[in-house]
């Protein structure tokens, strides 16, 4: 038992002692700050019709717990779903495989360390919710239980289940991370659609939030004296200028079956791990994925003639960026599995055939998001592949190599968007086609800057996911490709942001080059 705890502890430390985790915590802190809007803010997070609760302990506790449960279920999955993959890439897995640890113990340790990572983020949000209570205090008494209760019964069991799902998905889908992410995304959307009506059905809600949301709705229904409340909004609604009316929310008393169900969800999670453990590859990955007889290169024992340097033709100087561009494009194209290109082609076909608005607002952001794996390491692949000594000591690494890396990624995105751009140009909608062009540059620069800052892929992956999710849900604020209606300054604003990102990209790389 002692050694098992040690494994979890060390795995947790390994994951949290990174620069990117520090950034994740800072971002969590910043996002948590917005969970309960400042009294005069023009946005809302949870609003029932025109009502929000008085800023008492229960409102802060329950609202932040619900939003955390939903958002961290989605984003948290992407943050933690590479624990086993990391063990493969660092080759620690091979060492683990040679030890006596059982599959179940190893996988369960991964679940628990995933869970601890999520708990750390929850801890940050929890502290922020208390700080916000004292910041926006409406004169209500601080009741610690109203903060603790919703987190314990709603958020924590949800996070445990997400920690289990992350491990299960890693085993089932292996290195197909795009499939993994997409399936989880649709599973999440499906679970969010579930609308329980009674206590038993509440217990089937994995995220555990529906019981509180219905209680909030019912409270407001009683106030405004109607039977249906259609305007319960959960999530960020911007430019919500209409002043909200206030109602008293004093928390809820959870039914026993609900409390029991939260515990049962944890047990189900452990059970799933026990069921899947025998199917774990135990790091025998290469043999499973490739056919060694076909792909393995044999070492030729017969030696060919030695190099006579003096007789080798000398290559001439050629500072053209074209050969670099060619290989950068090759690296991008080969990055994902070949079948991803079939999906890309389907996406391009949809951009050609679907009504322009749908193609622009829905298909384009999804098609671009599918390239997340290619984009996320534009400027970090040197570090991840350990080729940075070659790149950083190359000739003019800033003006040649970095520029080419950016060009190639922009070209890829524009190629994928080309059916839409052509259609927009044919419709003489030059401003929109320019916005798509600008959007491509923006997302590539965002990927580069976030990659260089965090020295990893995760930050951009999560950010890109959030941006795409928000765009699909029609949140105009995060539209980076001109899909929605904007004021006349939109292209200028986007250009300025892109320019800032571009400058940051060169500045950071220059700083890195100086060692």
């Amino acid at each position: 038992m002692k050694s098992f705890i040690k494994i979890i502890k060390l795995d947790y430390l390994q994951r949290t002692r990174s620069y990117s985790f520090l950034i994740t915590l800072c971002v969590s802190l910043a996002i948590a700050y917005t969970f309960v809007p400042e009294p005069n803010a023009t946005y809302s997070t949870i609003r029932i019709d025109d009502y929000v609760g008085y800023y008492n302990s229960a409102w802060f506790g329950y609202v932040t717990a619900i939003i955390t449960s939903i958002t961290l279920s989605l984003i948290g999955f992407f943050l933690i779903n590479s624990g086993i993959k990391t063990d493969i890439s660092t080759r620690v897995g091979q060492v683990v495989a040679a030890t006596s640890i059982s599959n179940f113990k190893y996988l369960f340790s991964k679940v628990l360390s995933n869970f601890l990572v999520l708990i750390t983020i929850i801890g940050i949000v929890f502290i922020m919710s208390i700080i916000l209570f004292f910041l926006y205090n409406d004169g209500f008494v601080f009741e610690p239980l109203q903060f603790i209760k919703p987190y314990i019964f709603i958020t924590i069991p949800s996070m445990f289940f997400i920690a289990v799902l992350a491990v299960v998905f890693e085993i089932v889908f292996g290195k197909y991370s795009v499939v993994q992410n997409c399936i989880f995304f649709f599973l999440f959307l499906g679970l969010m659609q579930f609308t329980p009506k009674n206590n038993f059905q509440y217990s089937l809600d994995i995220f555990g939030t529906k019981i509180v949301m219905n209680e909030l709705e019912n409270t407001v229904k009683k106030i405004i004296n109607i039977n249906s409340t259609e305007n319960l909004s959960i999530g960020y609604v911007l430019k919500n200028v209409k002043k909200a009316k206030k109602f008293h929310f004093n928390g809820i008393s959870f039914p026993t079956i609900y409390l029991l169900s939260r515990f049962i969800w944890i047990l189900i999670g452990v059970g799933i791990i026990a069921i899947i453990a025998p199917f774990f590859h135990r790091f025998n990955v290469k043999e499973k994925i490739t056919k060694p007889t076909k792909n393995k290169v044999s070492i030729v024992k017969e030696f060919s003639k030695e190099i006579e340097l003096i007789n080798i033709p000398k290559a001439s100087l050629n500072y053209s960026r074209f050969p670099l561009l060619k290989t950068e494009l090759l690296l991008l194209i080969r990055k994902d599995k070949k079948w991803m290109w079939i999906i890309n082609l389907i996406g391009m076909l949809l951009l050609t055939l679907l009504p322009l608005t749908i193609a622009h607002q829905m298909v384009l952001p999804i098609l671009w998001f599918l390239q997340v794996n290619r984009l996320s390491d534009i400027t970090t692949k040197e570090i991840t592949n350990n080729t940075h000594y070659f790149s950083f000591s190359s000739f003019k690494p800033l003006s040649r190599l970095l520029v080419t890396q950016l060009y190639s990624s922009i070209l890829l995105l524009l190629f994928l968007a080309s059916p839409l751009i052509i259609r927009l140009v044919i419709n003489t909608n030059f401003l929109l086609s320019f916005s798509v062009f600008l959007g491509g540059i923006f997302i590539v620069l965002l990927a580069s800057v976030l990659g260089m800052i965090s020295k990893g892929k995760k930050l951009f992956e999560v950010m890109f996911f959030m941006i795409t999710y928000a765009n699909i849900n029609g949140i105009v604020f995060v539209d980076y490709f001109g899909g929605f209606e904007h004021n006349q300054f939109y292209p200028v604003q986007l250009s300025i942001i892109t320019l800032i990102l571009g400058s940051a990209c060169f500045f950071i790389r220059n700083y890195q080059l100086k060692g």
Partner: protein
Amino acid sequence: MKLEIQNVSKKYNRNKYGLKDFSITIEKGILGLLGPNGAGKSTLLKMIATVSKPTEGIIILNKNNILKDANYMRKQLGFLPQDFGVYPNLNAVEFLEYMAAMKGIGGPNLKPRINQILEGLNLLDAAHKPIGSYSGGMKQRVGIAQALLNNPKIVIFDEPTVGLDPEERVRFRNLISDLANDCIVILSSHIVSDIDTIADKVAIMKNGTLITHGNQETIIKKIQGNVFKTSIDKTQLADFKNRHIIVSTSRKNEKLNVRYISSQPLENSIKKETNLEDAYLYLTKIN
């Protein structure tokens, strides 16, 4: 060709130095850089390769300060880092073409040059297979190949023989000797036998400082006449270690044959011919 490293230091924090006030002048030929792990060899080489910058001091190549004009060095540099990776989805030819483009070389001779280098490094048969499927030694040879692409005038090899089998090591040594006719070769290792057969000059480092620098004979002379061989009981070993510097031991029945360095040898000891390994062990122990 002249590379001058003047009072170079790399300071990580208040008390920790990777390299401290290091000065050396390197001219055409092979410089063997020896030192135990953590001596600062890789730190120094990364600075010469313009991958890292010193916190103090200057590095001058042919009167050009490469800290101000890094591209002057990069144009004529071939660098094989100690711990490098490759892009697994590219094959060796594609990877080398990419490296060539990074170095700013091309033209019609590039392909034949790549092919001949690959042939010389025994990689031609696997040249069109993804590097991801290569063994460690093959990847190391791809690394060596990229260092030779641009007719380098300064070649830096940091622990180059890692993963190479004995035959490949011999071929590699021949290659380096060939290279050194025309340029500066800096070869770093903590394995003395990699260096003693080919290096014109040797620099020995420890704890970020230069202990000694010169040709092999001068360095060896420092302990000439102080290397001995004797036979002792296994039980005496601990005590023996405290009094002498042991170079190597070998087991023979219940006895141990010991090669050691001392100014006060045991009575039954036989004086042995001194070599670079003896000098290296002696100098790194006493400094």
